[in-house]
């Protein structure tokens, strides 16, 4: 079964083949090390349910809708992944996104700022908010639940005050409006898709090369190629669908291309995946979340890390807020309110992030956010009354989560947690 034997730092190792690798993977899956597989399974089940119930669900138009509908959840959830990684919580993320969105809208509309100054101002607001929250948690030692509950209330008030006690403020800046509502041109869509695939392939192949050059075990080339192929198929098929004409009224105007939010999501997904997986900072996050005391003993500046996650959390919330305002063409006192927060935390958790810290990835927010968005989107097509809608949404959420839980559960019973 084993073929070549190389040495890595004095410890004997076996060079895996494609067959042994697949075997290994299957062993891990049976052993409970499932990664995001169950969440993806849950997502597929959901899509099938809705697709069978309403045939518009699988249309290009509806597929494109998903991106802007899910953007706010996904961005807030991505920020929350960092907060949850430390076992903290940020209840104020929803209204923080509202406040940041409102600041942008006010600067644009009431003060006539340009988008390239108003947008950074909104993001800066997010960063400041996060810093204050993090400081209170890290330096005063107040539980984050209480700090952010207080902030949840305070931001709601600030939002009301900013909007002069409940007014809606419209935005007309075309750049900002485009963010959530427009699409890349077809050419640009393809360009992005191809760049993404090529970049992924290069990174993968480069890793193999570097490791091989150092005499370390590498994934067999077959597996690497398979991985590249799978990603290429997903991205290219999605691009193909999204570059079709999907206008409701094609005579009047044409709507096609990848929604602009898609590359924005992809950008942050790549950045945060890189930060969490490949940088010292990311490593330290996991360490503090897994065992704060061990991290402290290893000389990691725990307080600073703790502050930083709230900064990232609120910063991502500000991005979510900007996109929410763009999508609504306006900001109102409830922007970032209602279920936004619970749904965002839910997205992170469904995607596989632990509420107890130490476990989570940026992709969790995207997968979980997709689950939440698909539920919302699908339910919107069903045309239920309010009461029924709530009940069915709850049940559907439960179904999606139990596909995941049951898969893991079965695996856990083998003793491997």
């Amino acid at each position, binding site marked *: 079964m084993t073929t070549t034997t190389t040495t890595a730092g004095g410890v004997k190792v076996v060079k*895996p083949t494609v067959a042994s690798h697949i075997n290994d993977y299957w062993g891990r899956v049976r052993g*409970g090390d499932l990664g995001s597989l169950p969440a993806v399974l849950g997502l597929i089940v959901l899509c099938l349910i809705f697709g069978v119930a309403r045939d518009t669900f699988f249309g290009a138009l509806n597929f494109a809708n998903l991106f802007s509908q899910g953007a706010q959840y996904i961005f807030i959830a991505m920020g929350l992944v960092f907060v949850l990684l430390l076992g903290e919580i940020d209840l104020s993320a929803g209204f923080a996104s509202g406040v940041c969105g409102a600041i942008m809208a006010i600067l644009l509309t009431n003060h006539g700022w340009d988008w390239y100054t108003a947008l950074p101002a909104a993001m800066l607001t997010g960063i400041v908010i996060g810093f204050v929250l993090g400081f209170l948690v890290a330096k005063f030692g107040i539980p984050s639940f209480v700090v952010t509950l207080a902030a949840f209330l305070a931001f709601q008030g600030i939002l009301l005050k900013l909007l002069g006690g409940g007014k809606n403020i419209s935005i007309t800046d075309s750049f900002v409006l485009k963010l959530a509502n427009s699409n890349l041109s077809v050419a640009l869509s393809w360009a992005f898709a191809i760049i993404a695939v090529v970049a992924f392939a290069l990174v993968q192949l480069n890793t193999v090369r570097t*490791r091989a050059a150092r005499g370390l075990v590498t994934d067999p080339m077959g597996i690497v190629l398979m991985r590249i192929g799978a990603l290429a198929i997903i991205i290219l098929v999605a691009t193909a669908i999204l570059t079709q004409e999907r206008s409701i009224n094609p005579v009047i105007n044409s709507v096609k291309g990848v929604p602009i939010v898609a590359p924005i999501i992809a950008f942050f997904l790549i950045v945060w995946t890189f930060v969490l997986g490949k940088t010292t900072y990311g490593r330290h996050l996991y360490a503090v979340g897994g065992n704060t005391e061990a991290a402290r003993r290893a000389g990691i500046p725990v307080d600073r890390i703790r502050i930083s996650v709230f900064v990232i959390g609120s910063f991502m919330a500000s991005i979510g807020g900007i996109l929410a305002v763009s999508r609504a063409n306006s900001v109102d006192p409830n922007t970032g309110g209602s279920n936004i927060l619970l749904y965002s935390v839910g997205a992170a958790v469904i995607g596989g992030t632990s509420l107890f810290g130490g476990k989570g990835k940026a992709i969790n927010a995207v997968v979980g956010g997709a689950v939440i968005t698909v539920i919302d989107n699908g339910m919107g097509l069903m045309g239920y009354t309010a009461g029924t809608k709530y009940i069915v949404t709850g049940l559907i959420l439960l179904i999606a989560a139990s596909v995941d839980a049951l898969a893991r559960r079965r695996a856990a019973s083998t003793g491997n947690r």
Partner: protein
Amino acid sequence: MAATPLLEISGIDKSFGPVQVLHDVSLSVYPGEVTALVGDNGAGKSTLVKCISGIYTIDSGTVTFDGNQVAIHSPRDASALGIEVVYQDLALCDNLDIVQNMFLGREKKRGIVLDEPTMEQMAGDTLASLSVRTVKSLRQLVASLSGGQRQTVAIAKAVLWNSRVVILDEPTAALGVAQTAQVLELVRRLADQGLGVVLISHNMNDVFAVSDRIAALYLGRMAAQVKTTDVTHSQIVELITAGRSGNIGLPPEKPSDFGGEIVDITPGGDK
């Protein structure tokens, strides 16, 4: 081997995902005897104990207790049979105090009310018999105990009950000189009372001092189970480190036998 074993396990396999940790392991525990279970770090001793006590489900193999084949699915089943275990990872509740931990799962009651005075008294007696002298209060939280104090609490917890088999996984690792002597004496006393005792230890002096039989695990395989009087110190060390010694132990190693498993380093790239 005239006496029938009290606890007998045979053919146990256990894998964690792709990694097989125990291969066809058999072990017999006799009443009135101390069986020492030895083996290198990572040989699978603790895993074997956890399989016996129902913490892990076994992949295949049988457990026979008192002549009857039994299925142990959870620690409850094990303690119902009278199997008591001191785990290497002590498994104490840091948020409870010493008395609360010692009686966990088997609290004394008067009516529906916990009988704290009785438990406190019994806990005090047991600890005193184990040479504990530096505990400030029986109501101290376990979180604030020193390493050795924690270990003593875990041992005291396991010997409070009328059990038939006691398994101790490296019970003296963190103990001081006096406490170690006390625990070894306790182990001997338990066996003399007719219990089956399994003692896991890396200290060969202790093993030879108290054990009647020695079972040696090597890389998840049972290399040998022998009478203590039949072997020498160095033979056991050889069994531990090489899996065989002279004519006892595993058959000579064929490269393909273990090679694949020991050294299979999962590539770092695919995490």
